[in-house]
């Protein structure tokens, strides 16, 4: 078992990739829907007055695909939380509250930045009609042009923001 882990409780990238890739493949072959996280917010929103789904690239995470029964998304997100909770307990780190942040960053600054980043990501997920899991992982595994372009701009956005906010992530 130790062989699969690098220092601490984290899998070596190769095994983590194999595990995650298998789960993504399973989501494609079993439920045939892929993995969706941000879609859970679409469930909480009212259906749009004008349905542009016919014209748009409405993915499952988009507000425009509300017509279908999508309760399963809430179950997937619930499962994700429990799965992560179980492994973090299993790898002998007892549950405790913390604010993870870069060196020299105060907890208040970190929480304000987390709130701002959350707003940006929520806005981005609503715009794109998906997030890193649904478009980035699932879409790319299907070789969707949109997904591959999405991953490209995702990294561009990250490096651009790092220019201004990278200093908050020194270790």
């Amino acid at each position, binding site marked *: 078992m130790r062989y699969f882990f690098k220092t601490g409780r984290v899998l070596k990238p190769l095994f983590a990739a194999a595990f995650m890739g298998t789960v993504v493949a399973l989501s494609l072959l079993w439920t045939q829907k892929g993995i969706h996280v941000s879609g859970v917010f679409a469930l909480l929103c009212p259906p749009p007055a004008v349905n542009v789904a016919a014209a748009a690239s409405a993915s499952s995470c988009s507000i425009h695909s509300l017509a279908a029964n999508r309760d399963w998304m809430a179950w997937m997100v619930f499962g*994700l939380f429990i799965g992560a909770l179980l492994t973090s307990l299993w790898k002998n780190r007892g549950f405790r509250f913390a604010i993870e942040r870069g060196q020299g960053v105060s907890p208040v600054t970190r929480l304000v930045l987390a709130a701002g980043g959350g707003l940006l990501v929520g806005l*981005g997920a609503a715009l794109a009609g998906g997030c890193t899991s649904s478009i980035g992982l699932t879409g790319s*595994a299907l070789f*969707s*042009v949109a997904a591959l372009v999405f991953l490209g701009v995702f990294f561009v956005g990250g490096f651009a923001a790092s220019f201004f906010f990278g200093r908050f*992530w020194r270790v």
Partner: protein
Amino acid sequence: MSDNLSSLLIGLLFGASLDLAGFGSPRTLNGQFQLRDFSMFKVMFGAIVVAASVYLLMLGVGLAPVPISVIPSLDLAVLLGGFLLGAGLVVGGYCPGTALTGAAGGRVDAVVFFLMMYPGYRLWVWLEPQWPVNFHALWLPKNMTLHELVGISPIWVLAALALACGLGWQLGNYFEARHKGEKCRIVNGKVLVD
């Protein structure tokens, strides 16, 4: 088995894979953009190659392909959304799935991040009808895949992605070696500050 139960199980496994990859830690995720820790690139790109291989193999033995609507389509919204997700990951430290993973590890910042995604989501739902530009005008035919666009077998796309993944992996090793010692260590308790 009902969709809800199978989705729950897939969610469980996906959450476990995110946590075991170390993606509950915003410092690991942001190590990517500081070029000190390539876990994000390696695991994500590697997972895409593995998932695509398994999927294509299983289609080969006769399993049913996904409905075409699962494949995202290219428009300005996907482009802008991707940029915002990348920028938000650096500002706030997470993306939606990793925020849940971080929260499951007890990170308060992840809880704040996740809760604030909802107002962000609603902001776009509110803005979209009054926005002058239609972000959903398609740039390519709906649900277009790369092998359809180029007109080759998906096997070649898989080969190209695997090659790009391998090259990126090596590049990552090079940068990680240059930043040796700065790597965010995730030893019991040490990774969490406060």
